[in-house]
């Protein structure tokens, strides 16, 4: 029984924005469920196969913003074939048929066709925002449709997508009447753009706050754009190459100085390091700096740039910064919360320039550090223990030692103790990726201490099933578990199949699970889809239970087997 009329409750619920909280609210009672579902505008679906578009539309008629994720995370590393699934078209088609007034669509790791983009652009009058992250399947023709038809478009954000660039005039397709752009990011496109059209677009977009250009935009265009948009908050520079004594460069310096609002800087896809001094005036205000695509920037020039960035909170960088450079970061960036160090030469002959020393320096100098992605040459237990002591606030800790089973080079021991210290010290740890030589022991630590852990990535680790069992038993909040090349078999898989219903998904590849084991899970848990990905089609003629399964992906779902799986995916 409600003490308040529905409208009041609705108003109260408006203040509850987190998905988790709204989900909880909907479970309280029938009337709260009803009020919540009618007033919900933003929905997040972490696995597009866990629910169908029809059910989504039925439950949330007021839907305005939809976030969808498709392929499993390990698809990022070529472990999932391209046509495995994750197609957005059925969603757009169903939404278009309904009366949903979709305004925002955010997709990650999905297959997006030009046809879907065109349908999207024509079906929703108030469509405002399209964000595509790590998607594929579309060309610039699809972008042209979005530009041409979405009259009130505010945001077009393309991050790291594989786009077939037809070098068309998609930018020119924004009509003259389109003046609503707030965010435009096309840094991932590899082809030419119509520079004149770009300049005119920026000129008529007074609300533009975020602009990320691709490599094809030269310095003189950048200068003109900055002159027209001094209100920018987020800038992605495409090409940054010019003669430091030229007129254009001088004009650029003036233009940059006018951009007092820039807080986020990225790009430098092509860079001439001797021109970096023009950037110094805005460095003092930067909170996010992404130089992870700028291998041309290293050594002293890079150091000097970093030394100007005293307010930095997030830094994405290549490992050519070196341990010494990380020392400079530690001294300068006292507000640093997130650090990502990417390898500049991942398959090189072991010359990665960062080791455990750089990480220790940063941990000592930046006590607010809470999110880490670190590709390095080596790591020691001592270093990890020190880092754990210095930074107990880690939420995300992802360590990738380039040699997958490398022990502590000083003691020759596995890295169990080091990671153990991290999980013990960082009580709020939600995401962990392990690497290096690891035994079952580290999983015992994780099971014991990582109480808030939601996502765990394991590769080339453990000695036996015990490792996986420790994790499944201990981590009560685990949502995503992804494992590759570990000796976990059916015993571990089948120990507690009910657990998988409390998780979003489980990925296991190159482990010891057999077809029989997977079938067992599928039989016991009809609410799970158990997919066997068998690219080599070895299993077609050899459906023997004892056969080891190369890739298994299981996830909870309310809608049973999907109908769009390719031939080599066997759903049990």
């Amino acid at each position, binding site marked *: 029984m409600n003490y308040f009329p529905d409208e009041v409750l609705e108003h109260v619920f408006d203040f509850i924005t987190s998905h988790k909280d709204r989900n909880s609210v909907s479970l309280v009672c029938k009337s709260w469920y009803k009020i919540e579902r009618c007033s919900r505008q933003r929905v997040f679906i972490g696995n597009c196969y866990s629910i169908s578009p029809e059910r989504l539309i039925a439950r949330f008629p007021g839907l305005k913003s939809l976030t969808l994720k498709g392929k499993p995370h*390990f698809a*990022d*590393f*070529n*472990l999932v074939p391209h046509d495995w699934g994750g197609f957005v078209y059925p969603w757009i088609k169903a939404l278009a048929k309904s009366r949903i007034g979709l305004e925002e669509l955010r997709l990650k790791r999905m297959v997006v066709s030009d046809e879907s983009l065109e349908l999207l652009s024509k079906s929703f009058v108030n469509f405002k925002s399209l964000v595509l992250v*790590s998607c594929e399947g579309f060309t610039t023709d699809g972008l042209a449709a979005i530009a041409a038809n979405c009259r009130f478009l505010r945001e077009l954000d393309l991050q*790291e*997508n*594989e786009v077939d660039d037809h070098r068309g005039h998609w930018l020119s397709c924004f009509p003259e009447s389109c003046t609503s752009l707030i965010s435009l990011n096309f840094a*991932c496109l*590899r082809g030419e753009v119509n520079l004149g059209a770009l300049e005119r677009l920026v000129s008529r977009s007074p609300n533009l706050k975020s602009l990320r250009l691709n*490599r094809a935009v030269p310095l003189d265009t950048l200068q003109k754009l900055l002159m027209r948009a001094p209100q920018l908050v987020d800038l992605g520079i495409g090409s940054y*190459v010019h003669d430091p004594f030229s007129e254009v460069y001088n004009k650029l310096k003036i233009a940059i100085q006018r951009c007092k609002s820039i807080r986020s800087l990225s790009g430098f*896809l*092509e*860079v*001439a*390091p*001797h021109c970096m001094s023009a950037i110094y005036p805005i460095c003092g205000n930067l909170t996010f700096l992404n130089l*992870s*695509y*700028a*291998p*041309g920037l290293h050594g002293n020039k890079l150091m000097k740039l970093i030394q100007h960035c005293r307010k930095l909170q997030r830094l994405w960088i*290549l490992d050519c910064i070196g341990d010494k450079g990380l020392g400079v970061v530690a001294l300068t960036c006292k507000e640093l919360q997130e650090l990502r160090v*990417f*390898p*500049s030469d*991942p*398959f*090189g*002959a*072991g010359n990665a320039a960062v080791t455990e020393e750089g990480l220790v320096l940063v941990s000592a100098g930046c006590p607010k550090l809470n999110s880490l992605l670190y*590709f390095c040459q080596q790591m020691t237990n001592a270093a990890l223990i020190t880092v754990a002591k210095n930074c107990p606030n880690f939420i995300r800790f992802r360590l*990738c030692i*380039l*040699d*997958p*089973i*490398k022990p502590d080079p000083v003691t*020759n021991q596995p890295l169990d103790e080091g990671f153990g210290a991290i999980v013990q010290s960082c009580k709020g740890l939600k995401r962990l*990726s392990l690497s290096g030589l690891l035994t079952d022991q580290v999983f015992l630590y994780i099971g014991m201490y990582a109480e808030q852990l939601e996502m765990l*990535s394991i*590769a*080339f680790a453990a000695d036996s099933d015990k490792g996986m069992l420790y994790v499944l038993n201990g981590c009560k909040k685990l949502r995503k578990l992804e494992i*590759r*090349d570990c000796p976990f078999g059916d015993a571990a898989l089948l120990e507690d199949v009910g657990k998988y219903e409390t998780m979003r998904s489980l990925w296991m590849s*190159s482990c010891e699970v057999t077809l029989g084991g997977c079938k067992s899970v599928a039989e016991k848990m009809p609410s799970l889809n158990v997919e066997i990905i068998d690219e080599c089609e070895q299993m077609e003629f050899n459906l023997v239970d004892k056969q080891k399964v190369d890739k298994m992906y299981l996830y909870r779902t309310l809608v049973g087997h999907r109908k769009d799986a390719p031939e080599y995916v066997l759903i049990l």
Partner: protein
Amino acid sequence: MSPPLLGVEEEVQSSVSSPSVECISENGMGLKERNYLGLSDCSSVDSSGVSSNLNLKATELRLGLPGSQSPERETELCLLNLGKLDEKPLFPLLPSKDGICSSSQKNVVTGNKRGFSDTMDGFSEVKGYVYTEKSWMFHEAGSDSESPQSVGHGKYPGNSGVNVILSTRSPGVQASVKQDEPANVLQEQPRATNGTSLKQTVISDNNTGAPAAKAQVVGWPPIRPFRTKTLAASSKNNDEVDGKPGPGALFVKVSMDGAPYLRKVDLRTYSTYQELSSALEKMFSCFTLGQCGSNGTAGKETLSESRLKDLLHGSEYVVTYKDKDGDWMLVGDVPWEMFIETCKRLKIMKSSDAIGLAPRAMEKSKANNKKEFGYGC
């Protein structure tokens, strides 16, 4: 862990049994056994002297990429020493190979402290050395597959004998990964390829830090392909774009006698002498044009090009370079990689001026006209 091992099992033919290979890679026992055999002593004492000797040989005789062979050779020597230590007790049935082994080893070791005079002898020593090393490898092959009993009859029990062999191979194995394939050595000793490929596969097993092992693992390191593609494209562009001499560019001045101004070329944009030669031809065609006094407007280009070629190949000019020591050398003698490391400046001289400049070398270059510079007279 399985992918690297699989790689080994596929390629290893006879001599290496997989359990012992696994044994080494997983337990790192190879390390202990190396020390037991005093491998480190070997490498510090003998090979240092030898390597300097071999270095000279490398530059003089163009046996391969200079600077890349000596470390391998020092460890090969090491292996050789150990082989000698082991062979006697383990392979009593093959005294003749022992004989070869010891004699060439002796030669190499005594050549240690000598200088230039020994290098000519050294060449045959090298051959002999390589031959011996190879035969030593085959030797093992024989021992393992054909006559396991002979191993058993040796001083050491069969199993550890096999491990010993593998461990002694491993330092050489590790060192040779880091260099380019010693192609020329292989050319002279075609039968050695068997041994070398064996080494390489043991590398991929033993030394997980080696590029070969990494490349075999799908999806590792975990980086999005978008990122690796973009970085690869970025690096390429930066090399073209960045005018400063950094890791990407190596600009040197090029002067030509009689030309009013100099030019600069980035040596890293070429990979052979032929490419550099063509680039220089194009760059300086305008100057030689003036010299040969051609006139007329139409068809000037084609006329000049053929005339230029005639001029250059007709030995009017030679290309020389100034090396690190400040000496003017004829371009084309040394392997390309070595050339770009030592070249500080280029100069296109008239051949009449170049007479005093290593005339024998110029004759040699005339003989090798196809590969090397065609400017020699």
